[in-house]
């Protein structure tokens, strides 16, 4: 193992140790079930906002955004905006009323608002679906990080991350997690800002520019292992040594690729010499100038895709179980709103840095464009920009630590919230069962992550958001603002949106997507499934109008009236 790999492992280990220490400090304070579940509502707004941000900024944000920028350029700018807008939607539609509802999870809210146990069970199912789907890329991302930084196999990263997460959750409950995650947010930000500053200094003195009409060059001889079927494209002729199947032809030796597209089958090995133009994955801009501008990729229905991502991101955030649960740790609705605004600022600042790193990675790690491992850009940029040396190694270790923090925080947050749902809705036991629930909620996604091929964050994360946006967003928004919502209408809407979006997710993950509009709808389903869920909910509620809960007025009043009137009742 190289020195850089050892340094990275040490960094990851330090994060684990620090998390355990902070968590154990919290444990001493955690005495009751309530402590575990909602941190006794004593978490301060700054700590809470940091924790929410730390929990929310997953590997998809820490690694995925930069990788997406590296590949897609200006068009990828919409992704972080979509994720950030999710918190604006949260503060606009949900934050304060949800906190006042006293609901700790979406199933809780469903029961509080509509009093239907059937709907509660349905929501529990989708909480688990969303949580597990979201855990999948997190764990696989841990595997990617470990593989990239060290020579260890990917499974070890997945298993290790899973183990640490379970231990953290079982050991401390949510209270410790709150402070662990607040710590991890700042660690993540540091791990991005410091390398960005170093590389930025290099970039300013660099004579190269992104304002050119050619593709980026390989900065060193590079070998690319193609693990899934892929279509590469190049704006210029490329000479390479291929070993495998290219364009349906068995190749073994030097090859000349003409400008255009080339299909490469899985298992092929491509070797490029230094200074050769980098072929990019089809659909992405090929030259640097195109990359700088918007709408220059040749992906179909790109505008529609952007809108779909915006919808999924903006409306899906409020449906993420690990985000919602955080709002119950606010002392009141007003604090919930303010916390959300703080989260917006924290996340926005983080994304600005992330975008900067993505831009720099275009210059220093262009080879990732061909490997399809563009998500590794953040991990590799210190070494790529600074060369081999202790500065680069230490920065690499810092980035590794930030990456570990990203995986751990989101994963443990997800596990806590999933365990909370299992604990309150399925197991209905005492707090000892909470540990069992935590274990249960982590085992399945770990097994899945070990057995499924890894996909880009850019693909999987928006898909998960689409499921959340198609199920819980309509339930929450209509439940909070529309007195006509009925349990049947809500159940129908959740079912329609959930089934449609889940089907699209499964098709995207496991099947080859058709071309054209149907493919886009499966790939970015939110633009169809979210309106479908809303419509279904409204229409069915209209038809079952007589079943609307009788105390809906009092309920809505409780959701919207300030706490000082004494209408809300917190549970123990």
């Amino acid at each position, binding site marked *: 193992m190289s020195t850089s790999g050892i340094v990275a492992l040490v960094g990851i280990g330090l994060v684990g140790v620090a998390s355990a220490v902070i968590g154990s400090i919290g444990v001493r304070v955690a005495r009751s079930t309530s402590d575990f579940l909602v941190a006794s509502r004593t978490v301060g707004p700054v700590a809470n906002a940091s924790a929410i941000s730390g929990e929310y900024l997953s590997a998809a944000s820490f690694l995925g955004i930069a990788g997406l920028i590296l590949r897609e350029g*200006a068009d990828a*700018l*919409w992704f972080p*905006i979509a994720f*950030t*807008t999710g*918190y*604006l*939607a949260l*503060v*606009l*539609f949900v934050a*304060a009323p949800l906190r006042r509802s006293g609901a700790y999870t979406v199933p809780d809210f469903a029961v509080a608002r509509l009093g239907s146990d059937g709907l509660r069970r349905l929501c529990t199912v989708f909480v688990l679906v969303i949580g597990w789907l979201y855990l999948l890329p997190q764990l696989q991302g841990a595997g990617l990080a470990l593989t990239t930084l060290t020579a260890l196999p990917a499974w070890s990263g997945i298993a290790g991350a899973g183990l640490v997460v379970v231990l953290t959750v079982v050991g401390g409950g949510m209270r410790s997690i709150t402070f662990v995650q607040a710590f991890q947010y700042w660690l993540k930000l540091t791990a991005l800002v410091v390398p960005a500053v170093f590389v930025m200094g290099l970039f300013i003195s660099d004579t190269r520019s992104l304002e050119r009409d050619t593709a980026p060059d390989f900065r060193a001889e590079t070998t690319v292992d193609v693990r899934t079927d892929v279509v590469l494209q190049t704006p210029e002729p490329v000479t390479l040594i291929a070993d495998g199947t290219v364009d349906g032809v068995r190749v073994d030796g030097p090859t000349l690729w003409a400008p255009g597209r080339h299909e490469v089958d899985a298992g092929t090995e491509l070797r490029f010499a230094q200074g050769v133009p980098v072929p990019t994955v089809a659909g992405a801009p090929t030259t640097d100038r195109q990359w*700088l*501008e*918007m*709408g220059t990729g040749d992906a179909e229905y*790109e*505008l529609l895709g*952007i*809108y779909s991502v*915006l919808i999924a991101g*903006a409306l899906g955030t409020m449906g993420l179980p690990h985000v919602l649960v955080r709002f119950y740790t606010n002392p009141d609705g*007003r604090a919930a*709103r*303010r916390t*959300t*605004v703080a989260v*917006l*600022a924290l996340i*926005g*600042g983080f*994304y*600005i840095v992330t*975008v*900067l790193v993505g*831009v720099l990675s275009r210059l220093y790690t262009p080879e990732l464009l061909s490997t399809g491992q563009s998500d590794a850009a953040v991990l590799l940029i210190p070494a790529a920009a600074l060369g081999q040396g202790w500065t680069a190694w230490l920065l690499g270790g810092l980035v590794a630590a930030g990456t570990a923090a990203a995986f751990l925080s989101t994963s443990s947050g997800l596990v806590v919230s999933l365990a909370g749902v299992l604990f309150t809705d399925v197991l209905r036991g005492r707090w000892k069962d909470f540990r069992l629930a935590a274990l249960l909620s982590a085992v399945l996604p770990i097994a899945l992550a070990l057995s499924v091929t890894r996909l880009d964050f850019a693909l999987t994360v928006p898909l998960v958001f689409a499921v959340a946006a198609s199920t819980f967003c309509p339930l929450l928004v209509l439940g909070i*603002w529309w007195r006509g919502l009925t349990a049947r209408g809500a159940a129908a809407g959740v079912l329609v949106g959930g089934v449609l979006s889940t089907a699209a997710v499964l098709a995207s993950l496991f099947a080859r997507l058709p071309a054209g509009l149907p493919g886009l709808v499966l790939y970015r389903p939110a633009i169809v499934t979210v309106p479908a869920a809303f419509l279904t909910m409204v229409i069915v509620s209209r038809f079952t109008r007589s079943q609307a809960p009788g105390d809906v*007025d*009092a309920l*809505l*009043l409780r959701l*919207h*009236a*300030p706490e*000082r*009137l*004494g*209408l809300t009742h917190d549970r123990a």
Partner: protein
Amino acid sequence: VSTHVDGAPPSVAPGDPDDGEPPVPSAGMGSEWVRAEMQRRMAANRSTRGRHARAAEAAAARRRDDDPPITAAGLPRRVRPARPAVPVPPPEPASPADLPENYVPRHSVQTPGPAAEPAAPISGPIPVMRPPAGRAPARPAPAAPESARPAAAGLAPAGPASTGPAPAAPAHDSAPAEAPDTGSTTGRRAHGATANGAGANGAHRAPTDDGPVNRPSPPAGRLPVRRRRGSGPGTPLQAGDEPSGASWTRPGTIVPPDPARRLGAPPEALGATPPWGPPTASPPRGVAAPVRPADGPPTGTPQAPGPEAVTVRAPAAPAPGTRTDGTADAPEAPSAPADAEAPVEVPAETTDEITDEIPGGVMDTPTAPHPVVAGQRATLSGRVVGVPLPRTSDHTRIPARPVAPRPVTPRNIPVIGTAPPEPGSTRVRVVLSERKGVARPVRTIKEVQEGTPVGELLRRDLIRSQMRVTLRFAALTLLVLGVLPAVFAMLPVVGHARVLGVGVPWVVLGILMYPFLVGLAWRYTRVAERVEQNFADHVQD
């Protein structure tokens, strides 16, 4: 001293609240006025409820009475009891008409007096106790049930005093009504009379209909009701106190117009009005009223109650309190023999408070006892009217039932009539501090929660205004995020533009968008919080 404090605060506090309320409407939308009216109506209903609770027996009769007074729901109720008594005073009713006119001036006069005397009134009663002699003279005249007129006459001279007596005498009708009015008026005028908001409301109502005018007064009744509720709860006392404070202000504002109007228009009102006067004290009286002797007492009671209430509040210990009150009052009383007026006014308010208190813990006992006491009081009241303090004291003493405490706090005795001593002690806490905070919220919140028209209106308005805010911000966000992708896609020129060497898309989407989103969210929280604040203020006021 405490009594004084109490008395003084009420006046001030009331004024403030009233002022505050009116401003709100102005600041807010026109709908706020509607809400305010709704609330008043609601309060009236509530007050009726409270009364009902108190005197189930008289309920029917009272209701009848009340109904007429509908406008002054609260008052009517109180009046009702008085009316029973009124039968005795029937003669008075006739006179009341006359009296009302007289009263009007008196009221006006009184109001000023009250304003000036807010503290005095309180003390007034007490003083009465001590200075019975001084007051007695004045009051004695009024004292006689008939005294109502005499009182009126006397009142005319000493407006305030007259009001006090008037209640007693007119008994019933004119007097009571006046008394309450005065009380309210005093409060209003003193505090909020100036408060255009409240005054405006009252004025508006008055102009439109007597009923409306009366209604304004009902608010006072409402207030009491609230107090009652507050008292009802474990911490009733505090709640009651707060309410009382509220009631003061509210009644004050509302009442003023009513009294005048009532006076002017109320032969009928008389019936109702008397209730007002009695109302405060009358509740017990009302109970007693059935007995009828109560009628007399009511007037007396009111006065006594007023003092008592005040004294009681401040002085925790009834007996000591009475003395202390007396001392404190004495000064005041002396200052304003006219206090008679003050007393009257005070009594009205105090009576309100008392009623509240009664509903709360003493409720039961009061009802039963009141009748008896009322009877005594009635007689006394007649006297009292003339000579509030002495008589009241006597009454209290006579009632003996009240026990020693009563002697100490004769006033209390009248007020409590039934089982005052105890209430008195508790009352003390109530009055002083928590009134505004606790009691009000409870009332309004319940209103809103109970799905009453007012509550319905408030709730719908809250949710709608919140939704309006939310949709406004959501629409802005949607506009920006919806149009930008299309602009960049349709107008490549924009995407090609450079700002400081960096592409526009990178500047706009990579950097500027985040502060924009944060700013939107921040702005939204501010606006949403303001909406909630307005709602809460509304409900709690």
